[in-house]
């Protein structure tokens, strides 16, 4: 019995390690925002969109198509970016060209978990893009999580940029 329990605990630890810190699945986030999980829509990254995305990310985008979900009024974008060494996954809800709210769905770095705090994420609410595709407001950094904060800013800009391109 003890051995079984020990094996179960070990198994759960290993599974948690493999998954990283997953706080919410993308499907659950989409369902929470839109009430259901509609069929995903696709933004194809043409050369022009790729160039715009690369300018925001400082590296070429990983994929040539970006999935998103929309009910007409709001759209949900699930994006991934490396903070320091590991991918973080964040969900962005955009309405009328501005960020409605942001949620960290998975954070896999060993440090800098503060970027998932609502007090940090609420800074993005209401943010839009200026003419240079930068956020039209400043985001306060977090000591010890500078790279993750920068990655969140890049993802927020990218979500707004993709949303704008999806409407064109």
């Amino acid at each position, binding site marked *: 019995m003890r051995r079984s329990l020990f094996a179960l605990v070990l198994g759960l630890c290993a599974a948690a390690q493999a998954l990283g810190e997953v706080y919410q*699945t*993308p*499907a659950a986030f989409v369902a929470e925002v839109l009430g259901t999980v509609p*069929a*995903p829509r*696709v933004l194809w990254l043409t050369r022009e969109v790729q160039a715009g995305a690369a300018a925001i990310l400082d*590296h070429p985008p*990983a*994929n*040539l*198509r970006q*999935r998103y979900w929309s009910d007409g009024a709001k759209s949900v974008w699930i994006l991934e970016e*490396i903070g*320091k*060494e590991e991918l973080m996954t964040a969900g962005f809800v955009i309405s009328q060209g501005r960020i409605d709210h942001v949620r960290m769905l998975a954070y896999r770095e060993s440090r800098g978990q503060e970027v998932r705090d609502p007090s940090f994420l609420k800074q993005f609410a209401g943010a839009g893009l200026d003419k240079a595709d930068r956020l039209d407001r400043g985001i306060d950094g977090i000591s010890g999580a500078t*790279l993750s904060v920068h990655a969140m800013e890049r993802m927020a800009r990218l979500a707004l940029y993709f949303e704008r391109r999806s409407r064109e």
Partner: protein
Amino acid sequence: MPFRLRLARTLRRWHARIGFAALIFFVLIAVTGVALNHGAALGLDSRHVHAEWLAHWYGIRQEQPKQAYRTASHLLVAANGRWLLDGSPTGEKMPHPLGLVEIGDLLVVGGESSLHVYRADGALVDRLDGYALPGVPLKAIGAGEDELVVQTPAGPFSSADVLSWRPGAPKIVAWSMPTPLAASDREAYARRLAPGISLQRILLDLHSGRFLGRVGPLFFDLVAIFLTILALSGAWMFLAPRLRR
């Protein structure tokens, strides 16, 4: 000759000898240290060095590819967490492939828990995992009536755009199956699919001396002692004449 003069000469001579002997290691420590300091900006962690001798040096067991997945015009060979799609490497830490399927202009490589979608020229179109799949683990992938079909524990699902799924499968499905590689091909592919070691890890090991194995850190401790001696002897040679004045 006065003792002070003899001491100064001896010190100067040994300062030069130690400096010259340790020159390569000082340069190595300095260069790797600067690179590691800017590791994130240089993307050191995402760059990998592939060489059989390096993998052997690190004690990484190399897997030789034994089989390949083929479509009418494409070929996938995998080993050591790497894929060669039509002869081009596609990335690092890739899952073990279940199959290769061609759907229209798209090429799909299936793993147990992911689908990688490529254009015919090898550009990655999309990567689907978790919530984007109809179920995991995937057991097989195939093609039928211009649709991708995946076999899951809940049964087969089909998709024409590798985006949205419907339960079920066309009547005839050509499941992707591996074909064996010739012995000569195995060796050639093994060389091209040598395991990758991140540049960050190599530089870190060079910087700390661990690249040389167990004795490496001890040797670099010695180099650090030399550096301390150089700093102290240099400071003494600089300050002693000024203090005497």
